[in-house]
Every structure is written in C-alpha cells, then in structure tokens.
C-alpha cells in the first residue's frame, strides 16, 4: 500500500481547528503517536475529488518555533523532516483576529507548501463588523482563501474542493519575506549551508528551516530539539553570537519583520468597524472577572461542578457495579468451576468492570470542561485563580483538574490536557493523586467507625466530621506542598510564561461537546483501560495463587502470593502500626482504594455480603498483635488513614499517568515519591503518637 498524500491542518489554539478537522473528516479520526514524543497524532482518511487524502490535525500553536521535541513536531511535519512531506496545509485562522493569526499563516506559506487559509469564525467577525477582502488576501499571500463557520458546517464543502486543488499542486518557490538586510543575510547563509549539506532540497524549505533554527536553537545548547546535524547547530550558534556581538537581536528582527508583513496585509484586506471590539464579551467580563461578583460566580460554578461530579456519577457507578456483579454471578452459575472460570470472573470481568466504572466520571468531567471551555469561561477561571495557583508553582489552568481530583484522579489527570506547557502539565499530574478522591471515603468511614466510639465528640463536632475534615485538609496541604517542592526540584527550569487567550463568550455547540466527550472516553478505554485490565489480572493472580486445599476464602488468601507478601512486609509496616493483615489489605487496595474494605473482610473471614461493615468493624476491634496488644488503636487508625491520603494506592492512576505522560518513568516516579511520603508520614504519626502515649486509648 502506498502512503496517502498528507494534508496538515494547522492553526492557533482556539481558532476552531479541531471543529474544522472534525467537520472535514466526519469524526472518523485515528489516534496514534508521533515517533519519540508524547503527542497524539490525530489523522483521518478523506476522499476529496476522487482521491484519498490523509488529514492530520497538528497541535494548535501560535508559531512554528520550538524549544521541545513536542513543539518541533509542527515544523518537522511541515518540512517533511523524518516524517512524510505534506501535499498541502490548511491554516485555520480566526477571521476577527487576523492581525495575530496571519503570523502563523505566512510562516507556513513561506515554506512553499501549497496552503489553503480557512477564514473561520467568519460569523463572529461579521457580527463584530469586520469585512475581509478574500480575493486580496489570496493575492497577497499566495494561498487560496475559504470562508468558513466550522460549527455550522458552512464553507466545509468549498474547503474540501480547495484542499483538493492545493494537494494537486507542487511545492512552489515562495518569495522570501521582506526582512532587514542583516538578518536576511544571516538566514541566507544558513540556508545555503542547509542546501549544501542536502538536509533539505528546496530553497524555500531550506530558508524556512534556517529561520526556524535561528529562532529555536538555545544559545547554551540546552534545548531538547532532535535531528539537527551538529555542523548546522554550530553554524546557527555562530551566526547568533556574531549578531549579538554587533548588538543585534535576531529573534526580534525576524519576528518583527514577519509582523510587519502581517500588518501590511491586514491594513489592505480588513475593513474594521469604527469601534472594533467584542463588546458583548466585554460586558459579560465586567461581571465575571469583577473582584466581588466574579469571585462569587466563580465559587458557585466550581461548587456546582464539584457537587455534580460527586453526586451525579454515583447512580451510574452503582448501576455499573451491580451490572458487573450480575454478570459475574451469571458466569459463575453457567461456567464449570475451575481456575479458568475464576480467571474469567475475578480477573477479566472484574478488570473490565474496573475500567468501565470510570466512564461516568470521565464523561461528566469532560462534559463540564467542554461546557466551560467552549463557552469561554474556563480561560476566565484560570485568569481569576492564577495568582493563587502560582504561589505553589502551578498555573491557573491547573485549578479545574485539581478540584476534580477530589472526585477521582483518573478524569482529573486527563483534564490536565488543557494546560499548555508540558512541564506545568506534568507537575499537575504528579501532585493531583494526593487530592483525597471519593474512593478513599469508604476507607476513612470504616476506620473511623472502628477506632472511635460512635457518640464521641470533639467540642461540638462529631469525631467523624473532624477526621474527615482533617484528612481533606491534609490532602490539600500535601498536594500544594508537593507541587511547590517538585517545581523546585524534579521539574525546575524556566517556567513557560502564562500566555492565556481569553476568547469571546460563545454558546457551546452540543454536537461538538458530545463528540469531544466521546473522544476522551474512547481514549481512556483504549489507552489506559488495557493497562488497568492487565493489572487487575495480575493482582487477581497474586491474591489467588498458589492454590491451597482450603475451603475458606480467608485461608486461600492467607497462603497466596499477596498473603505471603503481607507477611514479608510486616517488619516494614509494623512501625506504622500495621500488621500483615492490614498489609494484605493495602496490597489488595491497589486495584482501587475501596477494595481495601472487601480484602480485609476476606482476611478476617467475614462471611457477610459486604453491604454491612458491622461484622468487619467488630473483627477489627477484636484483632490483636501476637503479644495481645490491640491492633486497631485510634492511633493506628489515624496512621492508616494518613497512609491512604498520601499513598498512590491506585493502579488506574498509574495507568492513566503513563498514558498522559507517554512514559513509564513519570508514573513510577509518582508511585515512589508518594509511597515514601505516605510511609514517612504514617511512621511519624505512629511513632510520635506512641511516645506521647496516645496509642493506648
């Protein structure tokens, strides 16, 4: 099979690029990975003018220059370096903000690849009184121009035809952009070096790459850009140094001359209204970002999201859980008993259940994020809260994911995609699992009810309320502290500046939102779901093998790998106040924290159906160390809860961080630091508490 001709779809963030891509491809996108980086390569095959083309959605950016390999994807795709050369490029621009959007368009056009400009958001531009002379724009840029309203599907048919025409052209020798003579000479020098080394063949492409090298390479060689021949790297730095010695700023010369060209074009093709502005948005913003009303609206919106994530997903989760239990029961009734059936029921079906159970929360969170983002409010959330988040090294965009972490870390980690800079994203992902998620609640409830007397009060508060409050407080303090520490250690380096566009307020399109929710859910099922399923099966094997001739489930568990592991780690966890049985519970809880409760029930031979905690609580209260000391003292209970707040007791979180960070090293780092943190904190609680004589009560 010969590879299909490639058409790239490029554009600024918020230009409507994804909407255009989906309108062109009819939501049949295929998600893969670019070699060597962690960016999704979203593509789809489309038949245009009787020819199959592969459309590729490039990540949204404001320019082609790069500091990381992730950002380098854009230029490598355009110039066909280590990737197939494109036949054409669609540049999506916001028609109401051409003064910025054309910057990227002319950079792309300068590479000589045939370009179609999609003049998107033309409805908003028209409403605000902008008139764009398309013929003149086409003449001045050399690109075909098509007017579109992506959300309504207007202009998509024309865009397809234009893509077909562009893809049939051959790359041209685009005229060089007009630049100051000195910097033009620098670019020309590097261009001929590129051509001599035969890194690229076409002069326009070589010139575009020369410009890119001058803008992107770090003077200290500290950039992370790949595939650049050392001789060219050296040459680029020489040229930059020479310019610097002459008191020149190459970056400024290049970017300012490009913008000069943009300004000339805009001057010629755009008729502005006398008072150009997004006046409706301004009026809304006067309230929504106002000191007092803005903060009030903010608090209300966040509370609603938070409450909904907690309560609306509950019924759906309950249905899924009882459905899985029903299927398991049906399988147990029909299949012959044996190890294979056990694998199917407790490994595979349970594993699929463990994956599907996250769908309601992921779906809901992304519905809200879609609503907030597409209406324009999400950017305002970041605007309002950035000051606070920055004090711990996070940025404003991390707020919604962090808040969602109280519900469940899985969707929250996926929600970090709205954070632009990779370092900021990673940082948010790594501290998010410290937020006390809803799966920790059953553990707190069981332990509190076990170790504290039911009517006990602290002041006028019940002890349960105090414990819950303390655990949530601990989780927030831990997450923020971890962020501040990681920012200064594992993830230091110059933070990307916050460059936050505040798009005009818009009515979100239900169709677009539904599609985005589905894409997120699908990405989760495929990307993280498989890992969760595999881990569930491994954990099942650990808990049920090797087989012993025992009737009671408890006996079997005690002799399993996990049971032995519990015994093996007892010396390590005894200083925290946990015996081997708690250890087995902790191992079992790796499947999901609430499984701690059911695993303990098996270890303690509780024969109830799990709906009622009472027998387990009694068993826990009666449990003793071999020397007769009580196991679950209040102090041991607090130590255990602190452990659960801080430990990364959740394989699904690890699976989703692996998917979102693209490597195993970050999730393993996360597991390591959280385990150390949890161990240290529980050790401190138990040891200090015991010394102070608090454990005997």
């Amino acid at each position, binding site marked *: 099979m010969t590879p299909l001709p490639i058409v790239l779809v490029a554009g600024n963030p918020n230009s409507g690029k994804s909407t255009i891509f989906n309108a062109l491809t009819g939501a049949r996108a295929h998600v893969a990975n670019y070699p060597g980086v962690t960016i999704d390569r979203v593509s789809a095959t489309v038949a245009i003018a009787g020819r199959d083309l592969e459309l590729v959605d490039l990540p949204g950016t*404001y*320019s082609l*220059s790069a*500091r990381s390999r992730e950002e380098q994807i854009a230029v490598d795709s355009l110039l066909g370096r280590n990737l197939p050369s494109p036949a054409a490029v669609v540049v999506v621009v*916001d028609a*109401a*903000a051409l*003064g*910025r959007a054309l*910057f990227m368009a002319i950079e792309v056009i300068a590479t000589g690849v045939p370009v179609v400009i999609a003049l998107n958001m033309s409805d908003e531009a028209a409403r605000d009184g902008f008139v764009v002379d398309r013929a003149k724009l086409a003449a001045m840029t050399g690109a075909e121009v098509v007017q579109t309203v992506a959300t309504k599907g207007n202009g998509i048919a024309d865009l397809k035809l234009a893509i077909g025409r562009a893809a049939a052209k051959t790359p041209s020798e685009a005229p060089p952009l007009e630049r100051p003579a000195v910097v033009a000479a620098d670019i020309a020098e590097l261009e001929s070096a590129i051509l001599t080394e035969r890194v690229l063949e076409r002069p326009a492409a070589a010139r575009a790459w020369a410009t890119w090298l001058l*803008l992107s390479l770090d*003077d200290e060689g500290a950039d992370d850009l790949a595939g650049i021949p050392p001789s060219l790297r050296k040459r680029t730095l020489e040229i930059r140094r020479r310019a610097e010695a002459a008191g020149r700023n190459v*970056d*400024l010369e290049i*970017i*300012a001359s490009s*913008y000069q060209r943009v300004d000339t074009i805009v001057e010629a093709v755009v008729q502005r209204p006398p008072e*150009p*502005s*997004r006046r409706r*948005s*301004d009026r809304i*913003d006067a309230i929504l*970002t*106002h*000191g*007092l009303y*803005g*903060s009030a609206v903010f608090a209300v919106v966040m509370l609603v999201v938070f409450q909904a994530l907690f309560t609306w997903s509950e019924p759906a989760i309950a249905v899924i859980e009882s459905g899985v239990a029903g299927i398991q029961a049906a399988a147990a009734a029909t299949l012959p008993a044996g190890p294979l059936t056990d694998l199917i029921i407790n490994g595979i079906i349970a594993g699929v259940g463990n994956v599907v159970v996250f769908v309601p929360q992921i779906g809901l969170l992304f519905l809200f994020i879609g609503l907030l983002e597409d209406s324009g409010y999400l*950017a305002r959330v*970041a*605007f*309002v809260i*950035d*000051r*606070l988040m*920055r004090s711990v090294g996070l940025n*404003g965009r991390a707020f919604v994911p962090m808040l969602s972490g109280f519900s469940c870390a899985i969707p929250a980690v996926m929600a970090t995609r709205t954070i632009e800079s990779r370092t900021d994203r990673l940082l948010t992902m790594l501290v998010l699992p410290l937020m006390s998620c809803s799966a920790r609640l059953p553990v707190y409830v069981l332990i509190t009810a076990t170790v504290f007397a039911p009517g006990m009060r602290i002041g006028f508060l019940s002890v349960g309320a105090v414990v819950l409050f303390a655990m949530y407080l601990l989780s927030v303090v831990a997450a923020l502290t971890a962020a501040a520490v990681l920012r200064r250690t594992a993830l230091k380096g*110059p933070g*990307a*500046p*916050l*460059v*936050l*566009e*505040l*798009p*005009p307020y818009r009515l979100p399109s239900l169709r677009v939102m539904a599609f985005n929710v589905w894409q997120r859910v699908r990405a989760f099922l495929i990307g993280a779901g498989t890992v969760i399923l595999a881990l569930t099966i491994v954990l099942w094997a650990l808990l049920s093998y090797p087989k012993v001739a025992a009737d009671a489930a408890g006996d079997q568990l005690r002799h399993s790998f996990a049971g032995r592991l519990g015994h093996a780690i007892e010396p390590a966890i005894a200083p925290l106040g946990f015996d081997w049985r708690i250890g087995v519970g902790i191992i079992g809880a790796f499947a999901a924290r609430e499984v701690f409760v059911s695993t303990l029930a098996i270890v303690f031979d509780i024969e109830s159906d799990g709906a009622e905690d009472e027998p387990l609580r009694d068993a826990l209260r009666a449990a003793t160390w071999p020397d007769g000391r009580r196991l679950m003292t209040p102090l041991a209970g607090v130590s255990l809860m602190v452990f659960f707040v801080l430990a990364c007791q959740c394989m699904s979180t690890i699976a989703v961080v692996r998917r979102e960070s693209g490597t195993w090293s970050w999730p393993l780092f996360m597991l390591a630091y959280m385990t150390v943190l949890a161990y240290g904190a529980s050790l401190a609680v138990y040891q200090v508490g015991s010394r102070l004589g608090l454990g005997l009560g």
Partner: protein
Amino acid sequence: MTRKHGSLAALPVGGTAIVSRVRGERAVVRRLLEIGLVPGTQVTLRRVAPMGDPIELKVRNFALSIRRSEALGIEIE
C-alpha cells in the same frame, strides 16, 4: 523622538500605549513577540484579575492575559 514611559505593568486600567521594547529571558521574550507584542503594537490594559495578577490586555483585537512579572519587561511609550 519617543520618550520612555516605563513598563506595561504600570499602565492604568483602560490605558492605551505603544510597545517600544520587550526585555527578559529569551524564551519569554520570544513568546511575547510571537503572540504579537512586537514594538510598535498598540496595547490596552483592559482589566486586572481579582487578586491583582494577572492582567488582561487587548492586542491586535484579541484578549490576552499575561502575568505582571512578564508585563514588567514590556516597555511602552
């Protein structure tokens, strides 16, 4: 002849000025230039976030929010 008037961070809300120079760490400066804050561009300070930072600008007919620490490096006239 133009006269230096200080930094964008000192512009009052509603005030309009022309960017004359952008200073700071190279990556930050490049980012700000690329998003359109090149010398000669008109900027308006539209709003300040409730906690005093970041600020909202109007540049090239779009709303852009940056932090004060970055705005300090943007000289206006």
